[in-house]
């Protein structure tokens, strides 16, 4: 794929025309870069020879801010704003890390509610990914359906904690609010409704012939390259690697539920294409519904704030905890020096790592295919730049 060389055109006199590579800027303002990503493309005509990503346009000094907090709980609103389309999952990762550092055991009810919220948020995030991916490829309609259904999930969140996007809902040791009584029936109703919608999405987009043609042979990421680049989430599973941290590095109560890991199988072309990454997201939404339904059935009674510590002062030490966010492995590395202020917090964001592979998978493709590749990585620049 990387050997894409077009023979230079030869004129009727036998002389070949002078051809040369060109440097083109894609972004930072560009509709298909999903935020403020700038790609420096070195192109040979329409063929991409090299991609040099320039990031950092949205750098908000998250890690430096954390070192100036007076309390570990204060980090949570900042964590929300990292990956702003799946805030619940970010909070989840951070509280798992902090609780491991503090050795807090949270009540069972809290774990169940967290799993429900995280899985609903995963669906909401994948709906954005799938919807905007459709737009990138040229299908506008699925986007509207996706946003309509995402709105229902946001309503559920609003019902629970009052916020629609940035929740500050999961606290270290507990939750800011218990779920209201009408949450469970509403969520069950949503699960039943959304199952049917998924079939529609697949008809409308996934198996659409144009969509398949645009994505099936594009951006191939072999499994060994994916692992060497530490890709995670749908990026990794799309390449056929059966790996999900919810099962393989278990946290919370995921082991109690019965669900499957979606893996790209190369249904319409080679394994590891953009289409495989897309189908993994579609299948994951269905699995999330399964988890939510089981969790709603089994949710135990209890107090969601009983384990919140009054004073957070972890012993000196360090911890790295990782969770499966919609984009992949979201890890927090926390170093404590024994005071109430975190000494160092590093967020290992999946978008940052997944984006670093872009040069590898887009060399030799057309510029139009690059749009499909960026969309299939599903980056959110808020977490890439932090």
């Amino acid at each position, binding site marked *: 794929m990387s050997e894409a060389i077009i023979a230079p055109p030869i004129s009727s006199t036998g002389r070949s025309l002078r051809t040369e590579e060109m440097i083109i800027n894609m972004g930072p303002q560009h509709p298909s870069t999903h935020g403020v990503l700038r790609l420096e493309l070195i192109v040979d005509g329409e063929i991409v020879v090299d991609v040099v990503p320039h990031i950092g346009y949205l750098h908000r000094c998250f890690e*430096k801010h954390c070192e100036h907090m007076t309390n570990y709980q204060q980090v949570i609103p900042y964590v929300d704003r990292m990956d702003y389309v799946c805030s619940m999952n970010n909070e989840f990762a951070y509280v798992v890390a902090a609780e491991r550092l503090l050795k807090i055991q949270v009540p069972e009810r809290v774990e169940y509610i967290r799993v429900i919220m995280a899985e609903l948020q995963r669906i909401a995030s994948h709906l954005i990914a799938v919807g905007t991916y459709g737009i990138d490829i040229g299908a506008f309609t699925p986007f509207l359906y996706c946003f309509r259904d995402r709105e229902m999930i946001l309503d559920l969140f609003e019902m629970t904690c009052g916020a629609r996007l940035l929740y500050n809902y999961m606290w270290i040791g507990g939750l800011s609010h218990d779920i209201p009584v009408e949450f469970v029936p509403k969520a069950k109703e949503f699960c039943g409704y959304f199952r049917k919608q998924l079939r529609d999405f697949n008809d409308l987009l996934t198996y659409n012939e144009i969509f398949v043609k645009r994505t099936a042979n594009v951006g191939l990421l072999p499994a060994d390259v994916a692992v*060497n680049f530490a890709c995670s989430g749908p990026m990794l599973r799309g390449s056929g690697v059966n790996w999900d941290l919810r099962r*393989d590095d278990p946290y919370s109560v995921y082991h109690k539920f019965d669900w499957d890991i979606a893996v790209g199988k190369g249904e319409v072309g080679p394994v590891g294409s953009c289409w495989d990454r897309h189908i993994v997201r579609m299948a994951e939404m269905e699995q999330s519904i399964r988890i939510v339904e089981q969790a709603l059935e089994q949710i135990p009674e209890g107090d969601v704030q009983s384990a919140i510590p009054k004073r957070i002062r972890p012993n000196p030490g360090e911890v790295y905890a990782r969770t499966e966010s919609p984009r992949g492995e979201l*890890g927090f590395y926390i170093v404590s020096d024994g005071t109430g202020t975190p000494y160092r917090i590093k967020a290992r964001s999946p978008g940052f*790592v997944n984006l670093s592979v872009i040069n590898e998978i887009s060399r030799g493709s057309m510029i139009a295919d690059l749009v499909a590749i960026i969309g299939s990585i599903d980056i959110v620049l808020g977490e890439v730049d932090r």
Partner: protein
Amino acid sequence: MTPQEISEKLAAKFSGVSDIGLEAKLDAPVDPTIKVSPNHILEVAKFLRDDDDMQFDFLSCLSGVDLKGKLAVVYQLFSMVKRHKITIRVEVPTENPSVPSVESIWRTANWHEREAYDLFGITFAGHPDLRRILLPYDWEGHPLRKDYQVPEFYNGMKVPY
């Protein structure tokens, strides 16, 4: 393999190297960590990836830490095949901190090392493209160092606005 076994195997493998500086801290509350001298991180990393019992194929995270006087680079390693994990740690003095790059072993280290260079000023010897990554290319200083002073102006703009 348990962290204990990993640490023992490493010690046995590198017993002939005098300045390897292996130092295992395996008890809580710290994640099981093995400290290695920066001169030998590359050999250790290669061994960890290629040995049949280790097979650490997944470099999950690489972070810099300022220890006031020393800078540390922390590698979080996982093995997808063997399902075990270990944390490797390298410490260098704050003056002229240089650590060999592990980019040739795990290519994911490329951007992580650029980030550590950007925010901590750790130079990674042998890195193919050591540029700033999150901050502007003409930014001065390394902000995550504990003694960092915010500059008053950046390109004529007042910084603490």
